[in-house]
């Protein structure tokens, strides 16, 4: 499997009246063809903004991609002229959003909206496009597709609208599907339907998926690789099994511990909570973003120096990387990674 997309040192900031919001701070990773990447994080972690930056959909002003490269099949998307980027969106990279009602145009029929991209990107005529649209609706499990093409978005339920969005996203056989919290607004039984559908279509179309979610459970069932984001940075990344079972970052560990499980008895147990509040993204990033909330923080080190995102010496696999100065199993500092300049300082602490 070749590399489909490579994100290098992506930095996105918003210049607002209240100051600069440091939304994405130096994010780099590779995505393979056909790979499903689960991006986990809370609100303000930069998970959505990083995806919108890839698509160049950041509202500007106030937003600005200040640094970085996004190589997609050899081209740097951030350098493409606008008209060429427009050909990439929808055709090669498609995106679905959390709330299907706000992403569908309420005054146009589903048919009009579905055939639009087919005519634009695939050069189809009205008749072919409409036949293909009906076929796509059938594929995402909407019964009576031919007739439903004439319906407006309000005539569909929430789950059905998300199916329409998926049909629209897959209409031009994209190489990459970016799904930004696509099941968050849906009920669990409908969420299970949509996830099942995406798994089926993934096998059928073979596209790569970036699935953005705050729900660790959803990502656990879907993703090959999991990437945990906090404060605009990747803090841990690796094969799903490693990240969930052999967790190496205190934030990921804290999240997993704080989640109650519906399949386990737990009366009279107290939840293990992560203390403190989510970070204020208006404060310029210095050191580890999780520092103030971290139970294992090392003063003078973690608040001064951002740890590199590398496989720690304790890591089992070279693909399992994390950005932390501490070995979470022992609470000991991983001094061998620390640059010599900082090491002297740490020894004094």
């Amino acid at each position, binding site marked *: 499997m070749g590399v489909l997309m490579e994100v290098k040192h992506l930095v996105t900031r918003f210049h607002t009246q209240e100051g600069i919001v440091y939304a994405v701070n130096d994010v780099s990773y590779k995505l393979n063809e056909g790979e499903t990447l689960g991006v986990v994080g809370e609100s303000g972690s930069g998970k959505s903004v990083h995806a919108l930056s890839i698509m160049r959909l950041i509202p500007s002003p106030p937003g600005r991609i200040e640094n970085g490269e996004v190589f997609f099949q050899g081209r740097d998307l951030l350098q493409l002229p606008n008209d060429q980027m427009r050909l990439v969106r929808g055709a090669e990279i498609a995106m679905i959003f959390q709330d299907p009602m706000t992403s569908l145009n309420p005054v146009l029929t589903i048919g009009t909206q579905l055939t639009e991209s087919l005519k634009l990107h695939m050069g189809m005529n009205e008749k072919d496009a409409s036949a293909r649209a009906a076929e796509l609706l059938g594929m995402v499990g909407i019964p009576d597709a031919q007739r439903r093409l004439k319906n407006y978005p309000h005539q569909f339920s929430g789950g059905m609208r998300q199916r329409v969005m998926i049909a629209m996203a897959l209409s031009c056989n994209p190489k990459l599907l970016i799904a930004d919290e696509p099941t968050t607004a849906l009920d669990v039984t409908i969420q299970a339907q949509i996830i099942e559908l995406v798994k089926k279509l993934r096998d059928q179309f073979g596209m790569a998926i970036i699935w953005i979610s705050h729900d660790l459970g959803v990502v656990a069932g879907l993703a090959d690789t999991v990437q945990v984001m906090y404060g605009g940075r990747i803090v841990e990344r690796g094969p799903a099994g490693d990240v969930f079972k052999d967790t190496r970052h205190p934030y990921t560990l804290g999240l997993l511990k704080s989640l109650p499980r*519906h399949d386990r008895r737990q009366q009279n147990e107290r*939840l293990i909570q992560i203390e403190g509040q989510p970070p204020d993204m208006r404060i310029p990033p210095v050191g580890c973003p999780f520092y103030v909330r971290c139970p294992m923080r090392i003063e003078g080190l973690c608040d001064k120096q951002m740890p590199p995102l590398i496989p720690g010496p304790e890591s089992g696999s070279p693909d399992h990387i994390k950005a932390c100065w501490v070995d979470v199993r022992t609470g000991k500092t991983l001094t061998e990674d620390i640059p010599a300049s900082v090491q002297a300082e740490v020894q004094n602490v």
Partner: protein
Amino acid sequence: MSSPAAAAPVTANQPAGILSGDKRVPLVKVRNLKKHFPINSGLIIQRQVGAVKAVDDISFDVYTGETLGLVGESGCGKSTTGRTVLQLYKPTSGSIEFEGHELTTMKPDELRKMRRRMQMIFQDPFASLNPRMSVGNIIAEPLRVHKIYDNKQEMLEFVEDLMQKVGLNPYYVNRYPHEFSGGQRQRIGIARALALKPSFIVADEPISALDVSIQAQVVNLLEDLQSEFNLTYLFIAHDLSMVRHICDRVAVMYLGKIVEFGPIDEVYENPQHPYTHSLLSAVPVPDPDIERNRQRIILTGDVPSPARPPLGCNFNTRCPVAVPGICYQEPDPELLEVSPGHWAACHRVLPF
């Protein structure tokens, strides 16, 4: 049983939830509660053409000091139930008894006094706080409405003390809601609900709008406050994992009816209703090994409109085990006690 005054006796087909030999006193007794919202048609002369049966004949007890969970998908009537129990909606019929007093026939001024004893925590910490009021004023408002304090200084001290209890710095008493994060705002909402020292709190999805790392904080706070003030909770939620953690008993609702009811571990480990079964199987688990090997029951279709519930069992349009005949004809299945305190409304729980 349409007379709201007549509190129906506990009969065999009512899930009063009284375990054999259970001597606990119910704080809230709900019997045959219905809340139907009329659908009107006509431009000038409005005529009722139907009704949304948001809550359709449900009965349950909430015991002093327990947490009763109310779960179900959107539109199942769980929030309407919570609001009707607090008399924020006038019930269509049925009876609600609170601390031995019938609420549905109570005079408005008596009801207002009663409201000190029962409060609500809302889902959206952004919409439920007045942006023009300072935190101190928001928390003190119920105290003013009910004229609890004559002395302003005493009231302020009480408010600051309460802020401390819910984990807010009293130093922020003069700040406004927009200066706080979602989790802190929810703490303000909790402090407001606690200001009148209630015994019963309806918490309507109190954590669903919060970040994952904040949810555990708020749930721990709710549990601490429960033991400190001996509170009784009606906890409405769709997050089944959190419900298992916080609740003692749970009622599963579908299309305005309770379909399963019982002690929490019993319902989660031994679900009797096919809806509970599929609901539990749809909840993702943060463990890739379990997720990959899990057999899911994927329900087809959506929840039918509560304005036009299907004939027979409400779940028959999506039920994987519905049988022709009995499941598709009236009467609806009744709640039957399958084991002590565990009730389910399904024709299939009985051998036939």
